[in-house]
């Protein structure tokens, strides 16, 4: 990609850091994207910008916000005879009440890791004797790809392809978060690739109704610093919605991706880890595609249990930092994770553990 080196130029980064430090006052900003979380931790931005800027992580990792009961459903589906479950790799180690998909695979369940939903179509064609279930996890970045795949399976008349949609929508979650009693941030650093699909205007309500400054940005350190600079500037100039990722994000988003998504899915209430049930924040298959919906299958699941002192729910709402969880780095590590924020490669705890942990 042209210009990538320029986005990583140390001189640019130092200048941006100095400009941010030159702005008066201090702000607390929340990023709601796992890729931003990793970028911030990896570049050491939290330390460099302290104390004028405090960066906290929100519910930006689709793997992490998936509810225990939904993990349990996926594990139960994987154990059904004649079923092959296709999943993105990030979901494999996420613990449910009675184990993970990786655990199910170890006990003989047919679980396949796919990079693209299209691979699940191939699995269905190659295994006519099995029912292939695609586990649809992800925000608006991923949902259109799963929708397009469901549409292809339907058009092809594949009768052994199904989907379990655990997709989540970002704007309803931000609305729920902004409305939580006691919730306060001075600005949101908004996700670039979700916004590629839904468009910048989808966040207008955060400024209009909640007076929270918002900047959409990309994933290079310079992008994130630029967003932080603009958000801190708004302390004086007043809340606004800005798009610093205009090389990929348009105000209206990607109309074609949205039309494919809404052709296949409709909004549904969804359970978020940490935030509870949020109206209209999930995606369910529309009536036309109900025959492909593995979400309607009867499965026997355990009563959803807690994860032994895990505080991922509080971390996902920005109430505490990973180091404030008693399990962090002690009984919960990337090699032996207790909660999803340590499992996912883009989880807040994994980011802190990899890049920001103080050596004992």
């Amino acid at each position, binding site marked *: 990609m042209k210009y990538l080196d320029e986005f990583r130029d140390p001189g640019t980064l130092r200048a941006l850091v100095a400009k941010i430090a030159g702005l008066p006052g201090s702000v607390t900003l929340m990023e709601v994207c796992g890729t931003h979380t990793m970028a911030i931790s990896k570049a050491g931005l939290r330390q460099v910008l302290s104390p004028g800027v405090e960066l906290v992580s929100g519910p930006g990792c689709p793997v992490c916000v998936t509810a225990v009961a939904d993990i349990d459903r996926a594990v139960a589906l994987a154990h059904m005879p004649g079923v092959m479950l296709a999943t*993105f790799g990030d979901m494999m180690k996420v613990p449910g009440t009675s184990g993970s998909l990786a655990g199910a695979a170890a006990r003989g369940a047919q679980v396949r890791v796919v990079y693209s939903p299209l691979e699940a179509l191939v699995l269905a064609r190659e295994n006519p004797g099995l029912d292939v279930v695609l586990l649809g996890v992800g925000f608006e970045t991923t949902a259109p790809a799963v929708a397009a795949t469901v549409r292809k399976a339907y058009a092809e008349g594949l009768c052994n392809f199904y989907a379990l949609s655990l997709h989540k929508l970002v704007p309803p979650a931000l609305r729920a978060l902004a409305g939580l009693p006691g919730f306060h941030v001075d600005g949101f650093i908004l996700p670039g690739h979700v916004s590629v699909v839904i468009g910048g205007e989808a966040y207008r309500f955060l400024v209009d109704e909640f007076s929270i400054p918002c900047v959409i940005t990309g994933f290079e350190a310079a992008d994130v610093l630029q967003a932080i600079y603009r958000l801190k500037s708004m302390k004086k100039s007043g809340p606004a919605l800005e798009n610093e990722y205009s090389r990929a994000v348009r105000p209206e988003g990607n109309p074609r991706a949205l039309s494919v998504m809404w052709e296949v899915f409709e909004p549904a209430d969804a359970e978020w880890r940490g935030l509870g049930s949020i109206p209209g924040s999930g995606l369910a298959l529309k009536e036309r595609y109900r025959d492909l919906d593995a979400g309607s299958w009867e499965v026997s699941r355990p009563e959803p249990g807690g994860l032994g002192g895990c505080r991922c729910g509080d971390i996902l709402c920005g109430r505490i930092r990973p180091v404030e969880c008693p399990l962090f780095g002690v009984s919960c590590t990337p090699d032996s994770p207790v909660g999803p924020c340590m499992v996912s490669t883009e989880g807040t705890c994994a980011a802190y553990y990899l890049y920001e942990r103080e050596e004992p």
Partner: protein
Amino acid sequence: MCLAVPAEVVELEDEIALVVLGGARQRVDLSLCDDVAVGDFVLVHAGYAIDKVDEYEARRTLELFEELARLEEPGEIP
């Protein structure tokens, strides 16, 4: 999980593009994208192109960074 990688389109065949990613050629589905041409950069996510990347805007963002670095007083970017 929402990571998307920009890649240049080198060949087109119906709704499939051949792109170069990390030195290797890869097939990318174009069902979610309008008007893709050879030479365009697309954002690749989970085997699909989720949109095009605007080269002009990429350049403009960099100019903004440069301008910001030159400013004497904070809070003055246009």
